[in-house]
C-alpha cells in the first residue's frame, strides 16, 4: 500500500524529469526601442549638415510609429564610440533599454552630402544593416529621409512614407494658398500666390496637385505642377470642389454643385469626358475618395437627412450607405491598404474627431478624443499613418499618427494655420 502511494506521488515527478514545455503567445506589439546617437561627422563640412540631418532623421524614426527613439540624455555609452560592432560596448546600450542601435556617419564631399548608416541588434551585437546614401549638400534632410527609408525598408520590407510628399492649405489673412512639402512639413513650396485656393489633392506619384481656386472669380478645379502653371480642368457648374485622383492617376473624381444639389462627377485627368455618377435632385454629394483598386468611390451624401459616408462603384452603381453612427460624418479618405476609410465626425459633444471604419465589417474605431478638433484625415502611401489637422495646441496645425490612432505628434514644420492636407497615394521609390 505504501509503495503504491509512493509511486502515485512520484509519477508526476517522473513525467517532469524531461524539461516541460510552456506555450507563450500573444505578444504585446510595441515600437522598437532604438538608440540613435548623434551622427559622427567625418569632416568640417559634415558638421554643418549634422544638425539639420539629425532633426529630420529623428523625426522620421519617431513618427514612423514602429520605432521608439530613446532619449539621448539617458545614454551611457562613450560619445566617441566607433561605428563598427567590435568597437561598440553593447551592454551600455542594453542598459538604457535599446534593442536596436542606429549609427550614422556623415561626410561632405563638394556639393554632395554622404551618409552611412549601420544598424546593430543590441542583444546579439550583430550588424544587421549597412547602407550608404547621398544627397545635395544643401539638402541634408533629403539624406536623412533616404537613410531613414532604407532602415524602414529593412524592417518592414515595404517603402517608407519618408520620401513622399504632402499638400495642404496655408491660411494667411484672407488668402488661402496651396503648398506642397516633404512628409514632415519641411521643404514647403507654394503653388498659388494669393486669393482663395482650397482642397488640394496630390496625384498618385505626387507630381501635380488638383485644387479648387477662385482665380476666375468662381470656384473651379485647376491642376498644377510645382514650379509650373495652373491649368483649369473643371470650369463649369456653380462650384467644383473636392478633386481626387484615381490610383492610376488617369481620372479625377470631384463634386459639382448646381442649384440646390451637388453631384459626384468622374472625368479624365485633363477634365475631358466628364459625367455625373450620382443623381439626387436635392441632395449634396461631395468629397469623393477612390478605393486603391480604382473600382469604388466613397463619398459624403446627405440623401439620408444627415451627412454620411457612402460607397459606390466608380461608375455610380451599387450605392451603399457605410456609416450609421453619428449624424455628421465627412471628409473620407480610403486607405491604400483598402480595408479602412478614415473620416471626420462630429460627436454628441460637438467635437470633431477622427474615426476609421472597416469597409467590409462596418466597425467604427475612434482615433482621436478630447484633444481639440481633429479633422481632414489623409492616409500615408503605405496606409500605416494618418495625416490630419488638429487644434489641440491652439490654431489648426498638421499632425500625424498611426492608423490605430497611436503616437500622435505634430509635423516637424507646421507654422501658421494649416488646413485640408492630402498625402500622395504612391510611395516614392528610391
Amino acid at each position: 500500500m505504501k509503495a503504491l502511494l509512493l509511486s502515485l506521488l512520484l509519477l508526476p515527478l517522473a513525467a517532469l524529469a524531461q524539461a516541460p514545455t510552456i506555450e507563450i503567445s500573444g505578444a504585446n506589439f510595441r515600437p522598437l526601442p532604438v538608440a540613435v546617437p548623434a551622427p559622427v561627422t567625418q569632416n568640417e563640412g559634415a558638421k554643418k549638415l549634422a544638425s539639420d540631418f539629425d532633426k529630420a532623421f529623428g523625426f522620421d524614426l519617431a513618427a514612423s510609429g514602429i520605432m521608439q527613439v530613446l532619449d539621448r540624455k539617458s545614454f551611457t555609452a562613450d560619445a566617441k564610440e566607433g561605428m563598427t560592432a567590435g568597437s561598440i560596448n553593447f551592454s551600455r546600450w542594453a542598459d538604457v533599454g535599446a534593442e536596436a542601435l542606429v549609427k550614422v556617419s556623415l561626410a561632405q564631399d563638394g556639393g554632395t552630402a554622404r551618409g552611412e548608416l549601420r544598424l546593430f541588434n543590441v542583444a546579439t551585437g550583430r550588424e544587421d544593416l549597412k547602407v550608404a546614401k547621398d544627397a545635395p549638400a544643401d539638402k541634408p534632410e533629403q539624406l536623412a529621409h533616404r537613410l531613414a527609408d532604407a532602415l524602414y525598408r529593412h524592417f518592414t520590407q515595404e517603402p517608407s512614407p519618408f520620401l513622399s510628399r504632402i499638400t495642404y492649405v496655408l491660411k494667411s489673412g484672407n488668402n488661402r494658398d496651396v503648398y506642397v512639402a516633404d512628409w514632415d512639413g519641411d521643404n514647403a513650396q507654394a503653388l498659388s500666390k494669393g486669393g482663395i485656393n482650397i482642397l488640394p489633392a496630390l496625384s498618385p506619384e505626387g507630381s501635380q496637385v488638383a485644387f479648387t481656386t477662385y482665380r476666375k472669380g468662381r470656384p473651379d478645379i485647376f491642376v498644377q505642377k510645382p514650379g509650373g502653371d495652373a491649368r483649369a480642368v473643371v470650369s463649369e457648374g456653380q462650384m467644383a470642389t473636392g478633386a481626387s485622383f484615381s490610383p492610376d492617376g488617369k481620372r479625377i473624381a470631384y463634386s459639382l454643385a448646381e442649384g440646390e444639389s451637388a453631384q459626384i462627377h468622374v472625368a479624365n485627368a485633363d477634365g475631358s469626358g466628364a459625367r455625373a455618377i450620382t443623381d439626387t435632385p436635392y441632395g449634396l454629394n461631395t468629397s469623393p475618395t477612390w478605393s486603391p483598386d480604382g473600382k469604388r468611390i466613397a463619398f459624403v451624401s446627405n440623401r439620408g437627412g444627415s451627412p454620411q459616408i457612402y460607397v459606390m462603384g466608380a461608375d455610380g452603381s451599387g450605392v451603399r450607405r457605410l456609416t450609421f453612427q453619428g449624424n455628421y460624418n465627412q471628409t473620407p479618405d480610403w486607405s491604400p491598404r483598402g480595408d479602412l476609410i478614415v473620416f471626420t465626425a462630429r460627436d454628441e459633444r460637438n467635437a470633431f474627431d477622427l474615426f476609421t471604419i472597416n469597409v467590409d465589417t462596418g466597425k467604427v474605431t475612434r482615433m482621436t478624443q478630447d484633444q481639440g478638433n481633429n479633422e481632414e484625415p489623409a492616409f500615408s502611401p503605405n496606409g500605416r499613418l494618418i495625416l490630419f489637422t488638429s487644434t489641440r495646441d491652439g490654431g489648426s496645425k498638421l499632425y500625424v499618427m498611426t492608423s490605430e490612432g497611436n503616437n500622435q505628434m505634430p509635423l516637424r514644420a507646421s507654422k501658421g494655420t494649416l488646413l485640408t492636407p492630402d498625402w500622395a497615394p504612391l510611395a516614392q521609390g528610391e
Partner: protein
Amino acid sequence: MTDTAYGHSLLVSRPSRLSRFIGVSVVGHIALLVAAVLYARLSSGPKMDLDAKPIKASLVRLGKPRDPKLLPRKEQLPPPPKQVDAPKPPPDAPAPAPTPAAVAVPIPGVKPEPSSAPKPTPQKGETTGEDRRKRLFGAFDKTAKAAEEEPEGAEDGDPDGDSATAEGERYFGLLQSQVRRHYNVADTIPETERLRLNTVVAVRLGRTGEVLDVSLTKPSGNDLFDSAVVTAVRKAAPFSPPPEHLRETLQKHGVNLSFRPNAL
C-alpha cells in the same frame, strides 16, 4: 431468623454503591459538557489573522449601454502626443548628463511600470554609474517580485490541499504569466512574418526562482524576435521559488518556453 428478617427488610437503609456511580456519572457528564462547550467556544471562534489582506469590494453601477447610433468613445485616453526633443548635437563635453526625463512612448494596452508599481521603480533613463545601476536594479527586483506575485494569489493558497501535480501546473501557470507580462515584441516585425515565427528558449531556475541559464534551443530566424523573448525571460526574473518537488527538475533540466508572436 432475626438476622435474616433484618437483613431482608426493605425499610432499613444500607450503604449502596449505586449512588456513588450515579454521582460519578453526573459529574462526569457535566465535565464532558463543559469541556465540549469550552472546546467549541475556543476552537470555532473567528481567528484573527493580522496578515490576512482585506477583501475590498466596491459596488459599481453599470451605466446604460451606449446608444448604438452614437459614435464610439475610447475607453482610455489617447496617448498624449509625444514631444520629440529636437536632438541637439552634443556639446563639447561628451559626458552625458543624467536626467530623469526620458522620453517614453506610451504604449496602449501596456501599463507604464512607474505608475503601476506601488513604490517608485527606477526608470532606465535614470541610471548612470555602474554601482547606482546595480542598486537600482536590486531594488527593482524586490519590488517587482512582490508586485508581480500579488495578483496571482497562488503563493498563499491552501498549503496542503493540492496534489503535487496541481501545484506544478499552478507554478507553470505563474511562470507563464510572469513572462507574458514582459513579452514585448517590436512593431517592426512584418505582419506576414508574425504568423510563422516560433522560438523555444530553455530556462534553468535555481531554488529561489533565480534564473541560472537562458538559452535559445530553437531560434526563429528573426534576431529581433529571438532577443525579445530572451529579454522577456530575463526581465521576468526572478521567478517565484519553485515548489519543492520541481526544484531539482528546474535546476537540472530547466523548462522550455515556446514563444509565438500572435495570440493562438
